[in-house]
Protein backbone atom coordinates (compact mmCIF):
# COMPACT_ATOMS: atom_id res chain seq x y z
CA UNK A 1 0.00 0.00 0.00
CA UNK A 2 2.55 2.50 1.19
CA UNK A 3 4.67 2.22 -1.96
CA UNK A 4 1.78 3.61 -4.00
CA UNK A 5 1.81 6.85 -2.05
CA UNK A 6 3.79 9.64 -3.72
CA UNK A 7 6.84 10.74 -1.79
CA UNK A 8 6.69 13.98 0.21
CA UNK A 9 8.48 15.98 -2.49
CA UNK A 10 5.88 14.95 -5.04
CA UNK A 11 3.08 15.36 -2.57
CA UNK A 12 3.96 18.94 -1.62
CA UNK A 13 3.76 19.99 -5.24
CA UNK A 14 0.16 21.10 -4.79
CA UNK A 15 -1.60 23.23 -7.34
CA UNK A 16 -4.30 25.33 -5.71
CA UNK A 17 -5.48 26.84 -8.99
CA UNK A 18 -8.86 25.59 -10.07
CA UNK A 19 -9.37 24.23 -13.59
CA UNK A 20 -10.67 26.43 -16.39
CA UNK A 21 -13.99 24.63 -16.72
CA UNK A 22 -16.77 25.46 -14.27
CA UNK A 23 -17.10 23.03 -11.40
CA UNK A 24 -20.39 21.57 -12.60
CA UNK A 25 -18.81 20.85 -15.96
CA UNK A 26 -15.65 19.32 -14.53
CA UNK A 27 -16.26 15.59 -14.25
CA UNK A 28 -15.17 13.84 -11.09
CA UNK A 29 -12.81 10.92 -11.52
CA UNK A 30 -12.43 8.67 -8.50
CA UNK A 31 -8.73 8.31 -7.83
CA UNK A 32 -7.09 5.40 -6.08
CA UNK A 33 -5.45 6.43 -2.83
CA UNK A 34 -8.13 9.01 -2.18
CA UNK A 35 -11.28 6.92 -1.78
CA UNK A 36 -11.92 4.15 0.72
CA UNK A 37 -13.28 0.72 -0.10
CA UNK A 38 -16.98 0.03 -0.05
CA UNK A 39 -18.68 -1.27 3.07
CA UNK A 40 -18.66 -5.02 3.54
CA UNK A 41 -22.21 -6.33 2.91
CA UNK A 42 -22.00 -8.58 5.96
CA UNK A 43 -21.43 -5.56 8.20
CA UNK A 44 -24.35 -3.70 6.65
CA UNK A 45 -26.55 -6.73 7.09
CA UNK A 46 -25.58 -7.18 10.70
CA UNK A 47 -26.94 -3.80 11.72
CA UNK A 48 -29.72 -3.75 9.15
CA UNK A 49 -28.40 -1.00 6.88
CA UNK A 50 -30.06 -0.86 3.45
CA UNK A 51 -28.83 -2.45 0.24
CA UNK A 52 -25.99 -4.68 1.42
CA UNK A 53 -24.04 -5.96 -1.62
CA UNK A 54 -20.56 -6.29 -3.03
CA UNK A 55 -19.54 -3.23 -5.01
CA UNK A 56 -16.43 -1.32 -5.88
CA UNK A 57 -16.17 2.47 -6.15
CA UNK A 58 -14.48 2.25 -9.55
CA UNK A 59 -17.25 0.06 -10.98
CA UNK A 60 -19.62 1.77 -13.36
CA UNK A 61 -22.59 0.13 -11.71
CA UNK A 62 -22.91 0.66 -7.99
CA UNK A 63 -25.91 -1.68 -7.85
CA UNK A 64 -28.35 0.84 -6.52
CA UNK A 65 -32.04 0.28 -6.01
CA UNK A 66 -34.05 1.27 -9.08
CA UNK A 67 -35.79 4.19 -7.38
CA UNK A 68 -32.62 5.58 -5.86
CA UNK A 69 -33.31 9.16 -6.95
CA UNK A 70 -36.64 9.08 -5.19
CA UNK A 71 -35.07 7.57 -2.06
CA UNK A 72 -32.47 10.32 -1.87
CA UNK A 73 -34.88 13.17 -2.55
CA UNK A 74 -37.41 11.86 -0.04
CA UNK A 75 -34.59 11.43 2.44
CA UNK A 76 -33.46 14.97 1.80
CA UNK A 77 -36.97 16.34 2.32
CA UNK A 78 -37.27 14.40 5.55
CA UNK A 79 -33.98 15.76 6.85
CA UNK A 80 -34.82 19.31 5.84
CA UNK A 81 -37.91 18.96 8.00
CA UNK A 82 -35.95 17.59 10.92
CA UNK A 83 -32.81 19.73 10.87
CA UNK A 84 -33.10 23.50 10.78
CA UNK A 85 -29.34 23.62 10.42
CA UNK A 86 -29.54 21.89 7.04
CA UNK A 87 -32.25 24.21 5.71
CA UNK A 88 -30.42 27.34 6.80
CA UNK A 89 -27.04 26.15 5.61
CA UNK A 90 -28.55 25.32 2.23
CA UNK A 91 -30.07 28.78 1.93
CA UNK A 92 -27.76 31.45 3.24
CA UNK A 93 -24.25 30.79 1.94
CA UNK A 94 -23.06 33.88 0.06
CA UNK A 95 -19.93 32.19 -1.29
CA UNK A 96 -17.62 34.73 0.32
CA UNK A 97 -14.87 32.15 0.21
CA UNK A 98 -13.66 32.65 3.78
CA UNK A 99 -13.83 28.89 4.35
CA UNK A 100 -11.97 27.87 1.22
CA UNK A 101 -8.39 27.67 2.43
CA UNK A 102 -9.37 26.59 5.95
CA UNK A 103 -9.96 22.97 5.00
CA UNK A 104 -7.00 20.68 5.53
CA UNK A 105 -8.05 18.51 2.60
CA UNK A 106 -8.11 21.50 0.28
CA UNK A 107 -4.76 22.73 1.58
CA UNK A 108 -3.24 19.32 1.10
CA UNK A 109 -4.83 18.38 -2.22
CA UNK A 110 -5.64 21.60 -4.07
CA UNK A 111 -8.79 19.88 -5.32
CA UNK A 112 -11.30 22.75 -5.53
CA UNK A 113 -14.22 20.50 -4.60
CA UNK A 114 -12.51 20.09 -1.23
CA UNK A 115 -13.20 23.73 -0.47
CA UNK A 116 -15.96 23.62 2.14
CA UNK A 117 -18.08 25.98 0.07
CA UNK A 118 -17.97 23.71 -2.96
CA UNK A 119 -18.37 20.55 -0.91
CA UNK A 120 -21.59 22.01 0.42
CA UNK A 121 -22.50 23.24 -3.04
CA UNK A 122 -22.46 19.63 -4.28
CA UNK A 123 -25.54 19.03 -2.15
CA UNK A 124 -26.88 22.55 -2.36
CA UNK A 125 -27.09 22.39 -6.16
CA UNK A 126 -29.45 19.42 -5.92
CA UNK A 127 -31.41 21.07 -3.12
CA UNK A 128 -31.92 24.14 -5.29
CA UNK A 129 -33.16 22.10 -8.20
CA UNK A 130 -35.86 20.48 -6.13
CA UNK A 131 -36.68 22.93 -3.38
CA UNK A 132 -36.38 26.40 -4.83
CA UNK A 133 -38.62 27.95 -7.42
CA UNK A 134 -35.68 29.76 -8.99
CA UNK A 135 -33.75 26.51 -9.27
CA UNK A 136 -36.66 24.77 -10.96
CA UNK A 137 -37.04 27.52 -13.52
CA UNK A 138 -33.53 28.84 -14.04
CA UNK A 139 -31.50 25.70 -13.38
CA UNK A 140 -27.77 26.12 -13.83
CA UNK A 141 -28.00 29.90 -13.85
CA UNK A 142 -28.76 29.86 -10.16
CA UNK A 143 -26.47 26.93 -9.44
CA UNK A 144 -29.07 24.18 -9.56
CA UNK A 145 -28.60 20.75 -11.10
CA UNK A 146 -30.34 17.44 -11.29
CA UNK A 147 -29.38 14.50 -9.15
CA UNK A 148 -27.70 12.14 -11.59
CA UNK A 149 -25.55 9.05 -11.16
CA UNK A 150 -22.50 11.20 -11.75
CA UNK A 151 -23.61 13.67 -9.07
CA UNK A 152 -24.18 10.84 -6.62
CA UNK A 153 -20.71 9.46 -7.26
CA UNK A 154 -19.29 12.92 -6.73
CA UNK A 155 -21.13 13.13 -3.41
CA UNK A 156 -19.75 9.82 -2.29
CA UNK A 157 -16.21 10.73 -3.32
CA UNK A 158 -16.17 14.14 -1.65
CA UNK A 159 -18.32 13.56 1.43
CA UNK A 160 -15.88 10.84 2.29
CA UNK A 161 -13.11 13.40 1.93
CA UNK A 162 -14.43 15.53 4.75
CA UNK A 163 -13.48 14.60 8.28
CA UNK A 164 -16.28 16.62 9.87
CA UNK A 165 -13.69 18.68 11.75
CA UNK A 166 -15.71 21.95 11.67
CA UNK A 167 -12.70 24.18 11.13
CA UNK A 168 -14.53 25.95 8.30
CA UNK A 169 -17.43 26.66 10.62
CA UNK A 170 -15.21 28.74 12.90
CA UNK A 171 -14.40 31.10 10.03
CA UNK A 172 -17.81 31.23 8.36
CA UNK A 173 -19.54 34.54 9.04
CA UNK A 174 -22.85 32.66 9.37
CA UNK A 175 -21.45 29.63 11.16
CA UNK A 176 -22.28 27.28 8.30
CA UNK A 177 -20.89 23.96 9.44
CA UNK A 178 -19.78 21.65 6.65
CA UNK A 179 -19.58 18.83 9.19
CA UNK A 180 -23.34 19.06 9.59
CA UNK A 181 -23.79 18.96 5.82
CA UNK A 182 -21.42 16.02 5.46
CA UNK A 183 -23.13 14.12 8.27
CA UNK A 184 -26.50 14.49 6.58
CA UNK A 185 -25.13 13.78 3.11
CA UNK A 186 -23.63 10.56 4.42
CA UNK A 187 -26.99 9.72 5.95
CA UNK A 188 -28.59 10.13 2.54
CA UNK A 189 -26.00 7.94 0.88
CA UNK A 190 -26.43 5.29 3.54
CA UNK A 191 -30.05 5.02 2.45
CA UNK A 192 -28.67 3.52 -0.75
CA UNK A 193 -26.06 1.37 0.94
CA UNK A 194 -23.24 3.71 -0.03
CA UNK A 195 -20.77 3.58 2.79
CA UNK A 196 -17.11 2.82 3.32
CA UNK A 197 -15.87 -0.27 4.99
CA UNK A 198 -13.75 1.53 7.54
CA UNK A 199 -16.99 2.86 8.98
CA UNK A 200 -19.44 0.04 8.22
CA UNK A 201 -17.42 -2.74 9.77
CA UNK A 202 -16.49 -0.86 12.96
CA UNK A 203 -20.20 -0.01 13.28
CA UNK A 204 -21.14 -3.69 13.07
CA UNK A 205 -18.37 -4.61 15.50
CA UNK A 206 -19.41 -1.96 17.92
CA UNK A 207 -22.99 -3.06 17.80
CA UNK A 208 -22.05 -6.62 18.54
CA UNK A 209 -19.18 -6.39 21.00
CA UNK A 210 -19.52 -2.87 22.38
CA UNK A 211 -16.33 -1.65 20.72
CA UNK A 212 -15.45 -0.95 17.13
CA UNK A 213 -12.50 -3.33 16.99
CA UNK A 214 -14.71 -6.28 17.84
CA UNK A 215 -12.81 -7.14 21.01
CA UNK A 216 -14.81 -9.74 22.90
CA UNK A 217 -15.13 -9.52 26.68
CA UNK A 218 -12.54 -12.14 27.59
CA UNK A 219 -10.04 -10.68 25.13
CA UNK A 220 -10.62 -7.23 26.57
CA UNK A 221 -9.76 -8.51 30.04
CA UNK A 222 -6.70 -10.29 28.64
CA UNK A 223 -5.43 -7.12 27.03
CA UNK A 224 -5.70 -5.09 30.19
CA UNK A 225 -4.08 -7.93 32.07
CA UNK A 226 -1.18 -7.73 29.68
CA UNK A 227 -0.86 -3.99 30.34
CA UNK A 228 -0.76 -4.73 34.07
CA UNK A 229 2.15 -7.10 33.44
CA UNK A 230 3.97 -4.38 31.59
CA UNK A 231 3.29 -1.84 34.31
CA UNK A 232 4.55 -4.26 36.92
CA UNK A 233 7.74 -4.73 34.91
CA UNK A 234 8.37 -1.00 34.77
CA UNK A 235 7.18 0.09 38.22
CA UNK A 236 7.09 -3.02 40.35
CA UNK A 237 3.48 -2.27 41.17
CA UNK A 238 0.51 -4.11 39.67
CA UNK A 239 -2.84 -2.38 39.14
CA UNK A 240 -5.94 -4.49 39.63
CA UNK A 241 -8.71 -3.16 37.40
CA UNK A 242 -12.26 -4.47 37.77
CA UNK A 243 -14.75 -5.05 34.97
CA UNK A 244 -18.53 -4.79 34.74
CA UNK A 245 -18.62 -4.34 38.51
CA UNK A 246 -22.03 -3.26 39.72
CA UNK A 247 -22.26 -0.46 42.24
CA UNK A 248 -18.95 1.13 41.31
CA UNK A 249 -19.01 4.86 41.72
CA UNK A 250 -17.40 5.63 38.39
CA UNK A 251 -17.55 3.83 35.10
CA UNK A 252 -14.53 4.43 32.90
CA UNK A 253 -14.87 4.24 29.14
CA UNK A 254 -11.99 4.66 26.74
CA UNK A 255 -11.79 4.26 22.97
CA UNK A 256 -11.01 0.66 22.18
CA UNK A 257 -8.08 1.79 20.06
CA UNK A 258 -6.26 2.47 23.30
CA UNK A 259 -6.39 -1.15 24.39
CA UNK A 260 -5.49 -2.43 20.97
CA UNK A 261 -2.53 -0.71 19.31
CA UNK A 262 0.56 1.34 20.11
CA UNK A 263 0.92 4.08 21.10
CA UNK A 264 -2.62 4.16 22.51
CA UNK A 265 -1.80 1.18 24.68
CA UNK A 266 0.69 3.27 26.64
CA UNK A 267 -2.06 5.76 27.29
CA UNK A 268 -4.26 2.93 28.56
CA UNK A 269 -1.41 1.99 30.90
CA UNK A 270 -1.39 5.57 32.07
CA UNK A 271 -5.06 5.26 33.02
CA UNK A 272 -4.41 2.01 34.89
CA UNK A 273 -1.54 3.59 36.83
CA UNK A 274 -3.59 6.67 37.69
CA UNK A 275 -6.59 4.66 38.89
CA UNK A 276 -4.36 2.37 40.92
CA UNK A 277 -2.77 5.41 42.57
CA UNK A 278 -6.18 6.84 43.40
CA UNK A 279 -7.72 3.64 44.68
CA UNK A 280 -5.95 4.03 48.01
CA UNK A 281 -7.46 7.50 48.22
CA UNK A 282 -10.97 6.20 47.76
CA UNK A 283 -11.52 5.98 44.02
CA UNK A 284 -14.15 3.39 43.15
CA UNK A 285 -13.91 2.82 39.43
CA UNK A 286 -14.68 0.02 37.00
CA UNK A 287 -14.23 -0.71 33.32
CA UNK A 288 -16.93 -2.13 31.10
CA UNK A 289 -16.53 -4.74 28.39
CA UNK A 290 -20.05 -3.95 27.16
CA UNK A 291 -19.65 -0.17 26.95
CA UNK A 292 -16.08 -0.56 25.78
CA UNK A 293 -15.90 2.12 23.12
CA UNK A 294 -15.28 5.81 23.66
CA UNK A 295 -15.71 6.54 19.99
CA UNK A 296 -18.91 6.36 17.99
CA UNK A 297 -18.67 5.28 14.38
CA UNK A 298 -22.42 5.45 14.13
CA UNK A 299 -22.02 9.21 13.94
CA UNK A 300 -20.34 8.75 10.55
CA UNK A 301 -23.29 6.72 9.31
CA UNK A 302 -26.46 8.40 10.55
CA UNK A 303 -27.91 10.10 13.58
CA UNK A 304 -29.92 6.97 14.20
CA UNK A 305 -26.90 4.71 14.14
CA UNK A 306 -25.09 7.09 16.47
CA UNK A 307 -27.91 6.69 18.97
CA UNK A 308 -27.96 2.93 18.57
CA UNK A 309 -24.26 2.65 19.27
CA UNK A 310 -24.36 5.09 22.15
CA UNK A 311 -26.97 3.09 24.02
CA UNK A 312 -24.59 0.79 25.96
CA UNK A 313 -23.18 3.72 27.90
CA UNK A 314 -26.25 4.85 29.82
CA UNK A 315 -27.32 1.24 29.97
CA UNK A 316 -24.04 0.22 31.61
CA UNK A 317 -24.38 3.11 34.02
CA UNK A 318 -27.91 2.06 34.76
CA UNK A 319 -26.63 -1.19 36.08
CA UNK A 320 -23.80 0.40 38.02
CA UNK A 321 -25.54 3.58 39.17
CA UNK A 322 -22.35 5.51 38.69
CA UNK A 323 -21.25 8.51 36.78
CA UNK A 324 -18.77 8.23 34.00
CA UNK A 325 -15.33 9.43 33.16
CA UNK A 326 -14.28 9.11 29.59
CA UNK A 327 -11.17 9.36 27.57
CA UNK A 328 -11.65 10.97 24.25
CA UNK A 329 -11.61 10.30 20.63
CA UNK A 330 -11.90 13.09 18.25
CA UNK A 331 -13.14 12.12 14.86
CA UNK A 332 -14.13 8.73 16.10
Amino acid at each position, binding site marked *: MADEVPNPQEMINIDHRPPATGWMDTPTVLRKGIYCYAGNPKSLEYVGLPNPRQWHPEDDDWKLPENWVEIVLDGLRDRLDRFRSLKIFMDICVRCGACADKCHYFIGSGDPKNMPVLRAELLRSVYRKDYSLAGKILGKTVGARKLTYQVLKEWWYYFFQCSECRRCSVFCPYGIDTAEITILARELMNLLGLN*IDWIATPVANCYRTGNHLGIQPHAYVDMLDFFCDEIEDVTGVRPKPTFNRKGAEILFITPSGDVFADPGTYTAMGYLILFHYLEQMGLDITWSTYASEGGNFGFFTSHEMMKRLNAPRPSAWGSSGSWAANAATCGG
Partner: protein
Amino acid sequence: MWRVIHQYMDTMNGPTDFMEDPVNPITGTRFENAKSTKMVHITEFTADLIRHNKLKLDKSRNDNLVVTFHDSCNPSRGMGLLDEPRYVIQNTCNHFYEMPPNTIREQTFCCGSGSGLNAGENLELRFRGGLPRANAVRHVHEKHGVNMLACVCAIDRAALPPLMEYWVPGVDVTGVHELVGNALVLDGEKERKTDLRGEPLPGMEEEE
Protein backbone atom coordinates in the same frame (compact mmCIF):
# COMPACT_ATOMS: atom_id res chain seq x y z
CA MET B 1 -15.99 10.97 20.64
CA TRP B 2 -16.48 14.04 22.63
CA ARG B 3 -18.68 15.84 20.22
CA VAL B 4 -21.21 13.03 20.56
CA ILE B 5 -20.87 12.98 24.32
CA HIS B 6 -20.92 16.72 24.78
CA GLN B 7 -23.53 17.73 22.21
CA TYR B 8 -25.65 14.69 21.41
CA MET B 9 -25.62 12.05 24.10
CA ASP B 10 -27.86 13.60 26.71
CA THR B 11 -30.34 14.62 24.03
CA MET B 12 -30.41 11.13 22.53
CA ASN B 13 -30.32 8.94 25.60
CA GLY B 14 -31.08 11.23 28.49
CA PRO B 15 -32.28 12.16 30.95
CA THR B 16 -29.91 10.20 33.13
CA ASP B 17 -31.59 10.94 36.44
CA PHE B 18 -30.88 7.48 37.78
CA MET B 19 -27.21 8.36 37.96
CA GLU B 20 -25.38 10.29 40.59
CA ASP B 21 -24.15 13.76 39.78
CA PRO B 22 -20.47 13.61 38.97
CA VAL B 23 -18.30 14.45 41.94
CA ASN B 24 -14.61 13.80 42.14
CA PRO B 25 -14.41 11.46 45.15
CA ILE B 26 -10.84 12.53 45.92
CA THR B 27 -11.17 16.30 45.77
CA GLY B 28 -14.90 16.71 46.29
CA THR B 29 -15.17 18.89 43.21
CA ARG B 30 -18.62 18.82 41.65
CA PHE B 31 -18.39 18.79 37.89
CA GLU B 32 -21.18 21.32 37.43
CA ASN B 33 -20.63 21.53 33.71
CA ALA B 34 -21.44 17.82 33.36
CA LYS B 35 -24.28 17.53 35.80
CA SER B 36 -26.87 16.50 33.22
CA THR B 37 -24.89 14.23 30.92
CA LYS B 38 -22.86 12.96 33.88
CA MET B 39 -19.87 12.27 31.75
CA VAL B 40 -16.57 13.89 32.58
CA HIS B 41 -13.54 14.00 30.36
CA ILE B 42 -10.54 12.28 31.85
CA THR B 43 -8.39 15.39 31.51
CA GLU B 44 -11.01 17.41 33.40
CA PHE B 45 -10.80 14.77 36.11
CA THR B 46 -7.01 14.67 36.19
CA ALA B 47 -6.58 18.44 35.96
CA ASP B 48 -8.82 18.75 38.99
CA LEU B 49 -6.68 16.23 40.90
CA ILE B 50 -3.47 18.04 40.02
CA ARG B 51 -4.95 21.40 40.97
CA HIS B 52 -5.75 20.01 44.40
CA ASN B 53 -2.25 18.57 44.78
CA LYS B 54 -3.53 15.05 44.96
CA LEU B 55 -0.96 13.60 42.59
CA LYS B 56 2.72 13.19 43.29
CA LEU B 57 4.30 13.81 39.94
CA ASP B 58 7.93 13.58 38.95
CA LYS B 59 8.12 15.67 35.83
CA SER B 60 11.74 14.83 35.21
CA ARG B 61 10.76 11.33 34.16
CA ASN B 62 9.46 12.90 30.96
CA ASP B 63 12.61 14.95 30.46
CA ASN B 64 13.56 12.99 27.38
CA LEU B 65 10.46 14.40 25.73
CA VAL B 66 9.94 17.77 24.14
CA VAL B 67 6.18 17.90 23.87
CA THR B 68 3.64 19.78 21.83
CA PHE B 69 -0.12 19.35 21.98
CA HIS B 70 -2.49 18.57 19.13
CA ASP B 71 -6.02 19.78 19.83
CA SER B 72 -8.41 17.23 18.42
CA CYS B 73 -11.15 18.68 16.26
CA ASN B 74 -14.25 17.75 18.16
CA PRO B 75 -13.02 18.32 21.72
CA SER B 76 -11.96 21.79 20.62
CA ARG B 77 -14.71 22.91 18.24
CA GLY B 78 -17.55 20.77 19.54
CA MET B 79 -16.86 21.21 23.24
CA GLY B 80 -14.08 23.65 24.04
CA LEU B 81 -11.72 21.34 25.89
CA LEU B 82 -8.58 23.41 25.46
CA ASP B 83 -6.89 24.28 28.72
CA GLU B 84 -7.55 21.08 30.68
CA PRO B 85 -5.19 18.83 28.70
CA ARG B 86 -2.59 21.60 28.57
CA TYR B 87 -2.70 21.91 32.34
CA VAL B 88 -2.12 18.18 32.71
CA ILE B 89 0.75 18.20 30.22
CA GLN B 90 2.44 21.18 31.85
CA ASN B 91 2.30 19.42 35.19
CA THR B 92 3.74 16.18 33.91
CA CYS B 93 6.62 17.31 31.76
CA ASN B 94 9.17 20.08 31.72
CA HIS B 95 9.46 20.78 28.02
CA PHE B 96 6.25 21.91 26.38
CA TYR B 97 5.97 24.12 23.30
CA GLU B 98 2.83 25.26 21.49
CA MET B 99 2.48 25.06 17.75
CA PRO B 100 1.77 28.36 15.89
CA PRO B 101 -1.45 30.10 17.01
CA ASN B 102 -3.39 29.61 13.76
CA THR B 103 -2.98 25.85 14.01
CA ILE B 104 -4.09 25.09 17.56
CA ARG B 105 -7.03 25.45 19.91
CA GLU B 106 -10.23 26.34 18.03
CA GLN B 107 -8.22 26.72 14.83
CA THR B 108 -6.63 23.32 15.14
CA PHE B 109 -6.09 21.13 12.10
CA CYS B 110 -7.42 17.64 11.66
CA CYS B 111 -5.10 14.64 11.78
CA GLY B 112 -6.34 13.97 8.24
CA SER B 113 -8.06 10.72 9.15
CA GLY B 114 -11.06 11.71 11.24
CA SER B 115 -14.69 10.65 10.76
CA GLY B 116 -13.84 7.13 9.72
CA LEU B 117 -11.28 7.95 7.03
CA ASN B 118 -8.49 6.13 8.85
CA ALA B 119 -8.28 3.29 6.35
CA GLY B 120 -5.21 1.84 4.65
CA GLU B 121 -6.26 2.26 1.04
CA ASN B 122 -6.62 6.05 1.21
CA LEU B 123 -3.18 6.86 2.64
CA GLU B 124 -2.60 9.54 0.04
CA LEU B 125 -5.74 11.38 1.15
CA ARG B 126 -4.74 11.02 4.78
CA PHE B 127 -1.25 12.37 4.21
CA ARG B 128 -2.61 15.24 2.15
CA GLY B 129 -5.25 16.07 4.74
CA GLY B 130 -2.72 15.75 7.52
CA LEU B 131 -0.25 18.08 5.82
CA PRO B 132 -1.28 21.27 7.68
CA ARG B 133 -1.07 19.51 11.04
CA ALA B 134 2.27 17.91 10.17
CA ASN B 135 3.60 21.21 8.90
CA ALA B 136 2.89 22.91 12.21
CA VAL B 137 4.52 20.04 14.08
CA ARG B 138 7.53 20.32 11.79
CA HIS B 139 7.77 23.99 12.68
CA VAL B 140 8.14 23.30 16.42
CA HIS B 141 10.22 20.22 15.71
CA GLU B 142 12.77 22.37 13.91
CA LYS B 143 12.48 25.35 16.23
CA HIS B 144 12.32 23.70 19.67
CA GLY B 145 13.34 20.12 18.97
CA VAL B 146 9.86 18.80 19.70
CA ASN B 147 9.90 15.00 19.54
CA MET B 148 6.56 14.09 21.03
CA LEU B 149 3.08 15.02 19.87
CA ALA B 150 0.51 14.64 22.63
CA CYS B 151 -3.21 14.27 22.00
CA VAL B 152 -6.46 13.27 23.68
CA CYS B 153 -7.90 11.21 20.87
CA ALA B 154 -7.54 7.54 20.02
CA ILE B 155 -8.02 8.15 16.32
CA ASP B 156 -5.14 10.61 16.54
CA ARG B 157 -3.01 8.00 18.23
CA ALA B 158 -3.73 5.67 15.34
CA ALA B 159 -3.54 8.26 12.56
CA LEU B 160 -0.74 10.58 13.60
CA PRO B 161 2.18 8.10 13.85
CA PRO B 162 2.18 7.25 10.12
CA LEU B 163 1.57 10.92 9.34
CA MET B 164 4.56 11.96 11.42
CA GLU B 165 6.69 9.23 9.90
CA TYR B 166 5.76 10.52 6.45
CA TRP B 167 6.11 14.28 6.96
CA VAL B 168 8.14 14.81 10.15
CA PRO B 169 10.31 11.80 10.99
CA GLY B 170 11.61 12.00 14.53
CA VAL B 171 8.33 12.94 16.18
CA ASP B 172 6.37 10.30 18.04
CA VAL B 173 2.81 10.37 19.32
CA THR B 174 1.50 9.99 22.85
CA GLY B 175 -1.67 10.27 24.85
CA VAL B 176 -1.75 12.81 27.65
CA HIS B 177 -2.20 10.06 30.23
CA GLU B 178 0.91 8.25 29.12
CA LEU B 179 2.77 11.30 30.38
CA VAL B 180 0.76 11.05 33.62
CA GLY B 181 1.57 7.35 33.92
CA ASN B 182 5.25 8.05 33.54
CA ALA B 183 5.37 10.96 35.95
CA LEU B 184 3.13 9.57 38.67
CA VAL B 185 5.08 8.33 41.70
CA LEU B 186 3.33 5.25 43.11
CA ASP B 187 3.55 4.02 46.65
CA GLY B 188 5.96 1.12 46.87
CA GLU B 189 7.21 1.39 43.35
CA LYS B 190 10.69 0.37 42.44
CA GLU B 191 13.16 2.77 40.89
CA ARG B 192 11.98 3.19 37.31
CA LYS B 193 14.66 2.65 34.70
CA THR B 194 12.45 2.92 31.65
CA ASP B 195 9.26 4.66 30.66
CA LEU B 196 6.11 2.75 29.79
CA ARG B 197 7.45 2.08 26.32
CA GLY B 198 10.53 0.38 27.71
CA GLU B 199 12.73 3.27 26.62
CA PRO B 200 15.43 4.19 29.14
CA LEU B 201 14.59 7.18 31.30
CA PRO B 202 16.84 10.24 31.16
CA GLY B 203 20.04 9.47 33.03
CA MET B 204 19.28 5.77 32.91
CA GLU B 205 20.66 5.14 29.45
CA GLU B 206 23.01 2.20 29.50
CA GLU B 207 26.53 3.24 28.90
CA GLU B 208 28.04 1.93 25.77
